[in-house]
């Protein structure tokens, strides 16, 4: 509702007006009137439009601290960069310097080969001193490149860094008008004039500082979340690790061996899981979910819901009596992907952490039929508690790490491969459970149809990956997983024939290509070709694989008695819940989006929130662990610093102008501007820690009470005037 409200009413969309409550309608119309009244009086005489504008008597000079702007006359210095030849070859920089020096407040203008270089910065600093400059303009590359560099130069001379204006003569002038040097020079002048116009109105701004709660929240207890939690806890911070399922471990716990070294997955994972449970700095919230998150970097508040296990976690010792006495033992075990069964009272796998049993309410005889309670009677520690309720807990943290992992691609979405239609077609993850000694068959690799050992096995690559109909991306782990599994199959049954059907085999990691060589030497056959379809022979449940052999250029068929589909990795179905709670962005593939693909790979757009593991995109365990440590280290920076500094280019409400309409409040998606409850007129007030400086409120405020620092109405208006004045 909030979205409809904010983006319709206050963005005055006529179509929606009719759907609005009468009161909202009148507010809407009031707003429209204000807009048109305050900005222009329209009249039509002789069919010619005439605009008349209000005087700008409301122009204010309040700085963000409420003090009026420095009294000093602007003394502007203009530094025009050649960028080697990038700008100077097209734009006549000398002419632009001459042009700039004629402006009344410009006391100094110069060109320089590379303003961003050490000598270039020294030139700025020297002239700030020499000419007592109090505004600096750099006409160079995009402000997105070097803003920080130049701000630092100002700061070094004791000048407020926000008294800098950069204008873009390279990306948006010389590089795009390479064949029109005259026009490019004229445009460069206009751009410089606009910067001068803005610079005269620049104000010193001071970033705000906020204290940081020295604790972190890690969401997701797979290997990514485990590693991030341990790192943060070892640095010395309190960590809340929230895991949705009854045990941490994630997908890694389901794997048998791990490529390329073939370590047993449980052997390397279990010690880490135990470390988590024992670490004095880690609070493990298993079988729990994050319901909501509010606040901002350094000061997040999260509500965790700990779901009822119907077993008291402080009394349960993990003895398993409940599970063995429970009369219902035929529930498909999620951990074994339904290949095995469990009791209603269960732990997902023997090494579960925490080792606490859970009663699955939906299948429990007591909850469904009101009878039984056998576990309650037999538990030696009286740990069963049918009255347990979900528990809500509020925690406070300074930073958040998202490690919610992936879902396996649902092979049913590719019906041509017969998954779930033919008994002997399995996924790669099911293969892991079958071959695992702790799995449903005790490590026997057998055909589900008849329990027989397979003699001819096919691995079919890229199921739901590199496929425009499903997921266009590469899932990055399935090639190596199949090569590993082919090796395992050969190891179990040296006489079996094992084929891998691939489009490309991607074995890019350290030691991966060598592993592929080894597996080929063991006799695994690699066939380059996309499998089109799989048929079943009803008599013996054997399978025919139809594929295009791209090396021979032929369509061929081959018979197998077992087929493993290399299903890809997908974003979790429930990832949106976290995305919405934190207002994170997703990349087009629906994995969580990093702040920058190369330079800020574990940060998000929301300050204080970091990403790691397959939540950010498919990757193997070495990459997951490296990324988790990176995220932990990033997440520890604000915690170690103890305070965070916010951008000062945010909104400010002038109370004298505010009419308490609350329009801004409904427009702001960050809840950063609200009626000030301590003010008797309930006028609006900006929460400086929450405001991100988007400017939506300023554009919506009918009373023009809101100033956007760095992008004020007056500055933009002056820029417009300059841009629309032809240079001489």
């Amino acid at each position, binding site marked *: 509702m909030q979205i409809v409200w904010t*983006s319709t009413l206050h963005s005055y969309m006529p179509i929606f007006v009719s759907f609005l409550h009468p009161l909202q309608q009148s507010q809407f119309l009031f707003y429209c009137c204000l807009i048109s009244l305050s900005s222009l009086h329209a009249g039509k005489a002789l069919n010619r439009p005439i605009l008349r504008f209000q005087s700008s008597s409301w122009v204010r000079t309040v700085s963000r601290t409420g003090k009026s702007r420095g009294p000093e006359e602007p003394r502007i210095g203009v530094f025009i960069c050649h960028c080697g030849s990038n700008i100077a070859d097209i734009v006549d920089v000398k002419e632009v310097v001459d042009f700039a020096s004629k402006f009344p407040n410009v006391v100094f203008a110069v060109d320089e080969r590379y303003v961003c270089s050490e000598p270039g910065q020294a030139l700025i600093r020297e002239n700030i001193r020499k000419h007592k400059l109090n505004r600096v303009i750099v006409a160079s590359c*995009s402000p*997105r490149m070097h803003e920080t560099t130049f701000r630092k130069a100002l700061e070094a001379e004791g000048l407020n860094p926000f008294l800098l204006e950069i204008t873009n003569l390279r990306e948006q002038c010389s590089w795009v008008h390479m064949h029109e040097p005259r026009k490019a020079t004229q445009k460069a002048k206009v751009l410089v004039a606009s910067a001068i116009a803005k610079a005269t109105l620049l104000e010193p701004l001071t970033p705000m500082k906020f204290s940081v709660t020295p604790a972190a929240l890690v969401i997701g207890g797979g290997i990514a979340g485990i590693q991030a939690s341990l790192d943060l806890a070892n640095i010395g911070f309190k960590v809340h690790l929230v895991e949705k399922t009854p045990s941490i471990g994630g997908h890694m716990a389901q794997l048998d061996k791990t490529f390329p070294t073939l370590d047993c997955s449980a052997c390397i994972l279990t010690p880490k899981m135990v470390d988590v449970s024992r670490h004095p700095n880690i609070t493990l919230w298993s079988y729990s979910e994050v319901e909501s998150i509010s606040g901002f970097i350094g000061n997040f508040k999260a509500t965790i819901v700990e779901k009822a296990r119907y077993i008291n976690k402080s009394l349960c010792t993990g003895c398993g009596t409940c599970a063995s006495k429970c009369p219902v033992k035929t529930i498909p075990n999620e951990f074994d992907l339904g290949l095995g069964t469990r009791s209603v009272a269960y732990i997902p796998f023997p090494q579960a952490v925490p080792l606490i049993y859970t009663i699955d309410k939906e299948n429990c005889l007591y909850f469904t039929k009101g009878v039984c309670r056998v576990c309650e009677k037999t538990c030696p520690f009286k740990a069963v508690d049918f009255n347990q309720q979900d528990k809500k807990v509020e925690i406070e943290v300074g930073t958040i790490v998202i490690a919610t992992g992936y879902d396996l691609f649902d092979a049913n979405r590719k019906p041509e491969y017969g998954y779930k239609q033919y008994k002997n077609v399995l996924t790669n993850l099911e293969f892991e459970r079958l071959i695992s000694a702790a799995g449903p068959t005790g490590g026997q690799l057998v055909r589900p149809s008849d329990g027989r050992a397979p003699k001819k096995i096919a691995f079919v690559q890229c199921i739901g990956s590199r496929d425009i109909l499903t997921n266009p991306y590469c899932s990055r782990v399935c090639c190596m997983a199949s090569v590993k599994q082919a090796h395992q199959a050969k190891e179990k049954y040296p006489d079996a024939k094992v084929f891998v059907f691939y489009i490309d085999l991607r074995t890019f990691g350290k030691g991966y290509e060598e592993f592929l060589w080894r597996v080929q030497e063991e006799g695994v056959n690699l066939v380059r070709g996309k499998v089109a379809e799989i048929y079943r022979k009803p008599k013996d449940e054997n399978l025919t694989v139809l594929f295009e052999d791209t090396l021979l250029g032929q369509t061929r068929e081959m018979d197998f008695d077992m087929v493993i589909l290399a299903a890809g990795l997908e974003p979790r179905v429930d990832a949106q819940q976290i995305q919405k709670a934190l207002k994170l962005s997703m990349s087009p593939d629906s994995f969580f989006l990093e702040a920058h693909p190369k330079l800020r790979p574990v940060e998000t757009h929301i300050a204080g929130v970091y990403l790691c593991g397959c939540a950010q995109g498919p990757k193997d365990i070495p990459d997951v662990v490296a990324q988790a440590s990176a995220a932990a280290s990033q997440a520890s920076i604000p915690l170690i610093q103890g305070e965070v500094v916010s951008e000062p280019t945010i909104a400010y409400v002038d109370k004298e102008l505010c009419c308490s309409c609350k329009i801004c409040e409904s427009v702001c998606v960050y809840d950063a501007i609200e009626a000030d409850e301590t003010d008797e007129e309930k006028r609006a007030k900006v929460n400086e820690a929450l405001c991100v400086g988007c400017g*939506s409120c300023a554009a919506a405020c009918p009373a023009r009470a809101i100033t956007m620092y760095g*992008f004020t109405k007056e500055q933009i208006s002056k820029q*417009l005037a300059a841009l*629309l004045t032809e240079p001489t």
Partner: protein
Amino acid sequence: MTEFEPVIIGLTCNWCAYAGADLAGTSKIQYPPNIRIIRVMCTGRIEPEFIFDAFRMGADGVLIGGCHLGDCHYQEGNYKTALRVSITREVLKSLGIEPERVRLEWISASEGKKFSETVKSFIEEIRRLGPNPLKGAPEA
């Protein structure tokens, strides 16, 4: 008479369209110099008055460039802009200014090509429309 050279004001958000314009630059994709850009953090900052101001001061067209819907760096800024621009166009129409003189485009940081194509086609459109009808109108 020399050919009419439209003056176009670009109002672009820092995260997408401005970055897209930068990419057009880094990729050296050429377009005519008729456009002059003002950078704001988000298109949600753009007041209808900026657009009115631009026309009052003599712009022949205003190009607003933001992130694709759903990609706004500040979640919903561009939705607000879309709605604001549509009403701004209505107001302009009632003032005798062709609403086509305001164009709104979603241009991502990776769409340098789209940025230059948009600028080119917009300049052509404004050329067809001719100069801003307010030019030469008496300030009352």
